[in-house]
């Protein structure tokens, strides 16, 4: 077994911010191309999509932040184009607020249960 500092096959870490109701579609698209695990977080954000106004008796609030889903996955480098294409196709609606995909170099990863590192761990 390799240690945490050993040099591995290159890996990427993909983070996508998507509309909440697109989560199922995106998850299915990813598993169908071989992505084994993802992490999902509920987030708030704004970009070009405008928020809305809420009124409670005499108090008016402009809500700028919109609810989004952040989906993250560690993938082997050679899968990057497919993963990005799959997310884009599944998450896109054509309306403002579809979201963004961020790609990072992933230096190392370890599976906690077994101690496996690198591509064995993703």
């Amino acid at each position, binding site marked *: 077994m390799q240690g945490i500092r050993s040099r591995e096959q290159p890996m990427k870490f993909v983070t996508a911010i998507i509309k909440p109701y697109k989560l199922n579609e995106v998850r299915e698209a990813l598993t169908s191309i071989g992505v084994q695990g993802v992490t999902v977080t509920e987030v708030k954000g704004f970009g070009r999509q405008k928020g809305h106004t809420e009124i*409670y*008796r*005499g*108090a008016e*609030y402009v809500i700028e932040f919109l609810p989004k889903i952040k989906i993250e996955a560690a993938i082997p480098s050679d899968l990057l184009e497919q993963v990005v294409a799959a997310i884009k196709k599944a998450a896109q609606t054509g309306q403002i607020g579809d979201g963004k995909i961020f790609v990072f170099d992933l230096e190392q990863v370890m599976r906690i249960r077994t101690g496996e590192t690198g591509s064995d761990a993703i």
Partner: protein
Amino acid sequence: MLFVVLFVNFAGTAFAADVPVPDKGDTAWMIVATLLVALMTIPGLALFYGGLVRTKNMLSVLMQVFTVFSLCMVLWVVYGYSLAFTEGNAFFGGFSKILLSGVTVDSVAATFSKGVVIPEFVYIFFQATFAAITPALILGAFAERMKFSAVLAFITLWFTFAYLPMAHMVWFWAGPDAYTDADAATKAGAIAGFLFQKGAIDFAGGTVVHINAAIAGLIGAFMVGKRVGYGRESMAPHSLTMTMIGASLLWVGWFGFNAGSNLEATGLAALAFGNTMTATAAAALSWMFTEWVLKGKPSMLGAASGAVAGLVAITPACGWVGIGGALVIGLAAGVVCLWGVNGLKRLLGADDALDVFGVHGVGGILGALLTGIFANPDLGGVGVYDYVANQVADYSTSAQMISQLWGVGTTVIWSGLVSIIAYKLVDMVIGLRVSEDEEREGLDTTSHGESAYKY
């Protein structure tokens, strides 16, 4: 010949045969009415208010309402009932029934009909629920920033010096059986409460409960100060679901409050019931539609608030007006109280967090005044009964309006003065407000060591 003054126990005397006996239907109804009013506070008001604050303060609201209810119940049986509903002077009763001394299962209390009584214990605890909900209403005005100990101290003072005398002034009288002839009526009238003597009519407590609490709330909002971040940060309600549940419990419970104030199960109780239903529904709609037109969308909070506004406004009127009058009162209350929580609130400039004055103050004043108009038999009202002539008297709107103004004015001034002094005293001894850090973190964890939601 001694006439029976019906607040004293006559069991075992030569006059026992003259003492009316409670009707089981009236008694059963009044026990149920008492339960309904209790439900209005726990959990009705607690949830109505609780849903309107932020998650970090939910428990503090529930706790304050629950505890104030309990506190006032105890104070009521110890001295509250005695000081409100025994003979004393025009402003306070006496100490003859401290700890309900002398009251037994055979004791009776008068109703509004000659020769009809209910067990005094039922009357005591029916009134107790009123004495408990009134202070609880105030809590909404200074929600999210007051010290718990200060809340308890202030409420004790205000209950004693504002609620008890108001209840005495408006509702204490010798009972209808004392009004046998003109001389007896004069004597009986002289022992009645100050506002009763002024002729003010208030069936279920528009002055005693709503204006009274609202003034205390408004003054509290001023004296405790605005919440940190008010006007800049979001203070949006955390659960309008809870608020709607609370509003619904208030609406249903209020039938006990209004129809129960008839003290017996008669057609007048049914009229009070019907007026309550009509005015509330009308007010919910009028607030909602007005909001729809002026702000673009009809809101759940608007409908719930409109309903409460209607309930408040019909409270003094419910046993005096006809259904037509109730409709007008309800429609008016929805619109006027919508202004109360918007334009008027901005004018006043206080952080009355849960709009106690905008709804209970404005609604209570509106209802008290419209009662004087619509109690008129010419406008469908029941008129004012003459217990000496044993018939409805001629109605003078101008005279009645003067009486109503006495009621409103006295409440505003009395409650105002007592509140200012009580807040000031408590501030000097305990301090009214929590620290800014505690306010930021939330009262649930800092005052009560608990959090309402785990997620």
